[in-house]
């Protein structure tokens, strides 16, 4: 994975840049010591690391604006960072960049139950947004698996999803407004407590723009009343195809589960060894969760279990109490950690039409044989968001590269069947060079033209999303200079 060569003139001006940042921020908010900037050298895509020139930790919108004005004037690239949980390298620094971390911005600014929204500073973690409203039985719906750590800023940048977005939608469907600072320091308010845009839907454009259009400092988020209850059921099948058909039939039947999670045999074996959840012996396992009052749950589960029985399940297991429910979710929730215990892994995020599940799972299995790398599949089946985990050995020379090659082939397969490279993790640097497989040069050009509008000098997170060759003239200032 290539990154652009750092700008020597920026590196040479480090002392001056640091002094200017210190002048606009409180003491302790500018981190320039090389031992300390190392803490920001990577995000959750740990295979790539590079300490930034400086890291700053502003505490509010005004401070963010001041930082960006300095960087804009000095021509310093800025990489915004939430909690650094990106699996796509969205917060990976370059040696000439300022990391703008939002970790100190975690206040709740307003809670409004009558109008069902909460306004927060974006450094607040996803789970603590729910934490702020749960004593009143409300919650914030998007629930990425890193929700304990990940920040709303990053959720907005990547348009994050989660296990329950089958019913509640992803970040963009739950975001009502933002306060955003543009690269030149201009502060804009987009949206608010109302539901739609009065002009062009800039909010929809900002969400998922990977920190390339502005730094979102405050967000108005839709909160929902908690359902009365929830109950999962576990279904085991003797083939991936049958499990896939069952998923499709459940969706077609008009039952709207909050989650349909899929695990295949390789993952089941690893997860079972690790978590001892007591999962049945099978090729494919589904966890389907529904919500409502007890009677409503019974009504939905009766229909779901009827559908499942038509597919000759190896076993159906309904949670009788909350202990059962925890046990059913245990293996799924510990799957990533379990794989991490036995190997290094790369987690892909391609999304496909649900009808293509069997074909893609077969394709992945063939690629696994071809490359000699183990793959486990654990993913959100209801919406076709695959998460193949390709296992490799980071200490074995060439294994990471092999894994990346295989990952690229899997993602190309997803695109080929009508899907996309990434469903909820974002492009970052990880899928940057594959964008040409999904988009024509014209499709990419119009997206880059959008960035020109918000950030004409291409200073915000410039080396992400677009293949370096496509963005080079812009990043190196050739377009701006014309």
């Amino acid at each position, binding site marked *: 994975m290539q990154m652009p060569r750092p700008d020597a003139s920026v590196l040479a001006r480090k002392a001056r840049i640091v002094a200017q940042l210190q002048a606009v921020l409180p003491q302790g908010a500018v981190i320039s010591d090389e031992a300390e900037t190392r803490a920001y050298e990577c995000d959750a895509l740990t295979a790539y690391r590079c300490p930034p020139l400086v890291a700053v930790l502003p505490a509010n919108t005004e401070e963010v604006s001041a930082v960006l004005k300095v960087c804009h004037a000095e021509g310093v690239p800025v990489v915004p960072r939430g909690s650094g949980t990106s699996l796509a390298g969205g917060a990976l620094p370059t040696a000439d960049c300022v990391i703008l971390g939002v970790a100190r911005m975690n206040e709740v600014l307003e809670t*409004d139950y*009558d*109008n*069902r929204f909460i306004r927060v500073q974006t450094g607040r973690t996803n789970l603590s947004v729910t934490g702020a409203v749960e004593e009143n039985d*409300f919650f914030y719906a998007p629930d990425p698996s890193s929700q304990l750590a990940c920040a709303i800023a990053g959720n907005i940048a990547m348009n994050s*999803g989660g296990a329950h977005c089958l019913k509640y939608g992803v970040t*963009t469907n739950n975001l009502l407004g933002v306060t955003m600072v543009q690269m030149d320091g*201009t502060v*804009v308010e*987009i949206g*608010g*407590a*109302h*539901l*739609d*845009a*009065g*002009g*062009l*839907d*800039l*909010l*929809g*454009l900002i*969400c*998922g*723009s990977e920190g390339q259009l502005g730094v979102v400092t405050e967000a108005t988020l839709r909160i929902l*009343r908690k*359902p009365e209850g929830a109950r999962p059921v576990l279904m085991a099948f003797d083939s991936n195809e049958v499990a896939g058909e069952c998923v*499709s039939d459940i*969706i*077609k*039947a*008009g039952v*709207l589960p909050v989650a349909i999670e899929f695990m295949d045999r390789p993952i089941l074996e690893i997860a079972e060894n690790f978590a001892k959840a007591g999962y049945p012996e099978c090729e494919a396992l589904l966890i389907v969760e529904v919500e*409502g*009052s007890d009677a*409503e749950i019974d*009504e*939905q589960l009766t*229909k779901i279990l009827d559908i499942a029985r038509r597919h000759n399940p190896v076993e159906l297991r309904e949670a009788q109490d909350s202990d059962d429910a925890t046990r059913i979710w245990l293996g799924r929730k510990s799957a990533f950690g379990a794989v991490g215990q036995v190997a290094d892994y790369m987690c892909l995020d391609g999304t496909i*039409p649900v*009808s293509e599940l069997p074909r893609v799972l077969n394709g992945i299995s063939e690629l696994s044989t071809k490359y000699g790398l183990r793959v486990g599949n654990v993913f959100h089946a209801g*919406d076709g*968001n695959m998460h193949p985990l390709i296992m490799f050995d980071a200490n074995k020379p060439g294994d990471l590269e092999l894994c990346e090659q295989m990952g690229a082939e899997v993602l190309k397969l997803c695109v080929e069947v*009508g899907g*996309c490279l*990434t*469903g909820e*993790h*974002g492009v970052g640097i990880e*899928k940057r060079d594959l*964008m040409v497989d999904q988009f*024509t040069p*014209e*499709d990419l050009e*119009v*997206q880059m033209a*959008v960035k020109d*509008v918000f950030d004409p000098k291409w200073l915000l997170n410039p080396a992400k999303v677009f293949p370096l060759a496509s963005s080079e003239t812009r990043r190196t200032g050739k377009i701006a200079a014309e």
Partner: protein
Amino acid sequence: MKTLSPQTEAELAECISSAQGPLHIQGGGTRSIGRINAATTLETTGISGISLYEPGALTLVAQAGTPLAEIEAALLPERQRLAFEPQDLRGLLGTTGQSTIGGVVASNSSGPRRIQAGACRDFTLGTRFVDGTGTVLKNGGRVMKNVTGYDLVKLLSGSWGTLGVLTEVSLKTQPLPETAACILINGLSDSEAVTAMSRALGSPYEITGAAHAPAGIDGHPVTMLRIEGFEGSVSYRAEELRKMFSDKDVAIERSPDRLKDGWRWVRDVALMQDKPGDVWRISCKPSDAPELAHRLKATSLLYDWGGGLIWALMGEGSDARKRLGDFGGHATLVRASKSGATPPTFHPEPAALATLSKSLRAKFDPKGILNSGIMD
């Protein structure tokens, strides 16, 4: 007025790249809004047809000129629907002809269920479109989750043809619920109604429509709360909601036909059809709605989205924005008198946002020929 009616995406691209002046972009022309300064109309009705429908994947792909009615007819046998309830504005705007799916997406047309299921923009998975230079582009796709590159699909939804002409859209469909019910509360004042709707929307009973008419079909105030789902669940929730409002005059409507008619009446703003005056659409924070509506001094009012959407019938030429003053939200002039000076159709944006919107339009449509005038 000259009309161009391309039959393919390539022909449409050619129409745009060779255009000598401004173009009025339209589907079936049923949602016409604002004033167009173009001598040539470019209509998309020739680019029509459903190219893919996978009920098991809840996905439908259609050419932009496909009539909405054709899509709804295709969904019905599979017991599916467009959950965002696109409006039929022919009655309100006095237009005729067929609404197209491209027009629905270009105007982000979303009905009462927007409050729970989401807007048109939330169900639009992908688009193909032609920009103002005649270049054919695509964004999004046909899968439920997609964060690959910028979300131009959202930007195009509700852009009223000013960024590009849609040629194809992919939509997420939704299974029809088994049954539905509507809780009717009679006799509430506007502010009591918004409070009641907030209470219901803040309950766990999944309200899929919350509207209030100070003068309903029979002339009396009525507040409507819709629930949908399986029979057992619907009757359970209807009963819980009845208990919640036991101190009020409550009735429960279960007749499918009456439910359909009642919510169409809300969706299509039937209250203001065939009545003289301008129609304004105000999007706001629900709890602000009663006060804002009071300031409007409107002839007739309808609240949807739990109060977050106000429809107001006002005297011809009156400027709702002046009466509203400063507020969080925006007001759109949906139906304006034919003569005289009218206020801008869309709510003027703060300077920084207006600059962004204008620059975006200049990128997508450098010659300024696509529906120029509409969003200015």
